């Protein structure tokens, strides 16, 4: 039975493709079909907000390397529209039904659209999630707009601002928080990024919301009206407002899925609406909400590159019946961002941190390790151009060390834990 079973992977991005590879590696012998909404073969997304925008990488040159001879069947350009658990079939938007014995859900996220549909439809208003988005935005930037307005100073917004400055474009970056990246790093560390933005010549406006986008007679965006008064004239607007999980296709399927993701257990098994695992159905990557041992406030979904790979591999092991002895998925959360030629990396989870301490280097030099504590425990560390120290902090986080850890390190000045300065509630643009 297991020998000939049919597997379907829904989602043909990083988690989907690494999951399909792992499924084969773990001994799945039957057909594996990978369903992807985009028409393109799997590609790497991080360059889309960086080197693609500067023109240094081509949007069609990001295809992911894959193992050869895996005998995968690709259904690209096909959107999954429904899941029929009783019949064990994935229903495509075309109405076609793909029966499965094993299913990996890896549908990821999409860019959160500009909230006003009419304004979002104006020419010149962009989001960055897919290869085609990035190709369109790159073309718009290459045309040399007089000003680019980026709304949202999260990682995508800051990276896009960095890319625009690299190619010499005037940029305004607005964000409701008091500092860039504030919801992930806190305002104390975020203020370092504020320095980077300003030094690079970005017109950065914290604590600022956009009330409306204004178009011209031909339907092209020409300006943004700010909530506090004033306007910013811009020919290109990038809405960098975060991501929305692609779970709508699971509505009514009997699995626990909502805007926060599709729920699964520590072995990536998808849960039904009663919280029981559904046999032969797993989820991984950005769309999967699961109980991570470091997440103290309940199940979480991570939008991290490395997580997509590692969780997909774990999910594939579960699906292939190889989960015994591995324990629940508990890989250390980790991500990176590069902007303004600075390498920002993070391990652990800053959520709910009540203290931060710079244990090595200094904020002033923009080269440091900042450690985050929560209720006296070490929960996260962030490095700016100090990547080689992070493994030591990851080990301290994993061990649940008291905060602050690693006292007596080289390049450690006198440090005092401070308020990390997280916005009290998530600010909406």
């Amino acid at each position, binding site marked *: 039975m297991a020998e000939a079973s049919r597997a379907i992977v829904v989602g043909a991005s990083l988690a989907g493709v690494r999951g399909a590879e792992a499924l084969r590696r773990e001994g799945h012998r039957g057909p594996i*079909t990978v369903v992807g909404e985009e028409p393109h*073969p799997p590609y*790497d997304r*991080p*360059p889309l907000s960086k*080197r693609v925008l500067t023109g*240094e*990488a*081509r949007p069609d*040159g*990001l*295809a*992911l*390397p*894959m193992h*050869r*001879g895996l005998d*995968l*069947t*690709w*259904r*690209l350009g096909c959107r999954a529209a429904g899941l029929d658990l009783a019949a064990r079939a994935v229903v495509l938007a075309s109405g076609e039904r793909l029966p499965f014995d094993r299913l990996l859900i890896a549908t990821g996220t999409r860019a959160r659209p500009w909230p006003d549909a009419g304004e979002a439809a104006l020419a010149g208003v962009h989001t960055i999630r897919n290869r085609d988005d990035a190709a369109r935005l790159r073309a718009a930037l290459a045309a040399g707009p007089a000003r680019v307005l980026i709304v949202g100073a999260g990682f995508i917004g800051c990276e896009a601002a960095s890319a625009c400055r690299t190619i010499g474009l005037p940029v305004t970056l607005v964000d409701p928080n008091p500092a860039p990246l504030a919801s992930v790093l806190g305002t104390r560390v975020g203020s370092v990024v504020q320095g980077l933005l300003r030094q690079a010549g970005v017109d950065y406006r914290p604590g600022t919301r956009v009330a409306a986008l204004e178009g011209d007679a031909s339907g092209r965006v020409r300006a943004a009206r700010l909530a506090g008064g004033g306007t910013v004239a811009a020919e290109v607007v990038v809405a960098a407002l975060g991501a929305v999980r692609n779970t709508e296709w699971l509505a009514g399927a009997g699995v626990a899925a909502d805007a926060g993701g599709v729920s699964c257990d520590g072995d990536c098994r998808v849960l039904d609406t009663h919280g029981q695992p559904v046999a032969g159905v797993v989820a991984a990557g950005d769309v999967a909400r699961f109980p991570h041992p470091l997440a103290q406030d309940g199940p979480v979904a991570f939008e991290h*590159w*490395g997580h997509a*790979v590692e969780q997909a591999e774990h999910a594939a092991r579960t699906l292939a019946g190889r989960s015994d002895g591995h324990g629940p998925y508990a890989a250390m959360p*980790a*991500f*990176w961002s*590069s902007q*303004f*030629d*600075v*390498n920002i*990396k993070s391990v652990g989870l800053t959520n709910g941190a009540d203290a931060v301490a710079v244990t090595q280097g200094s904020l002033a030099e923009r*080269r440091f390790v900042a450690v985050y504590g929560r209720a006296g425990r070490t929960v996260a560390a962030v490095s700016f*151009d100090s*990547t*080689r120290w992070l493994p030591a902090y990851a080990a301290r986080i994993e061990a649940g060390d008291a905060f602050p850890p690693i006292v007596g390190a080289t390049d450690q000045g006198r440090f005092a834990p401070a308020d990390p300065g997280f916005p009290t509630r998530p600010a909406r643009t």
Partner: protein
Amino acid sequence: MRVVVDLNRCQAYAQCCFAAPDSFAIHGLEVLVYDPAPPPERRREIERAVQACPVRAIRFEAVPEAPRDRG
């Protein structure tokens, strides 16, 4: 060819930049930038970069397989 680097693992040792200088470079102190689609004539260099990486963060596919659609 196709190249992807796991930048979580990358620790900016820059060994790839020496092994394949046309395909990898460090910007600033430790931002690795690379060509995700280098031309086939750089295969030996890229292989050297893969081997030289102290954390084995580079993955590459010399001759990409054409994805097989449902046929």
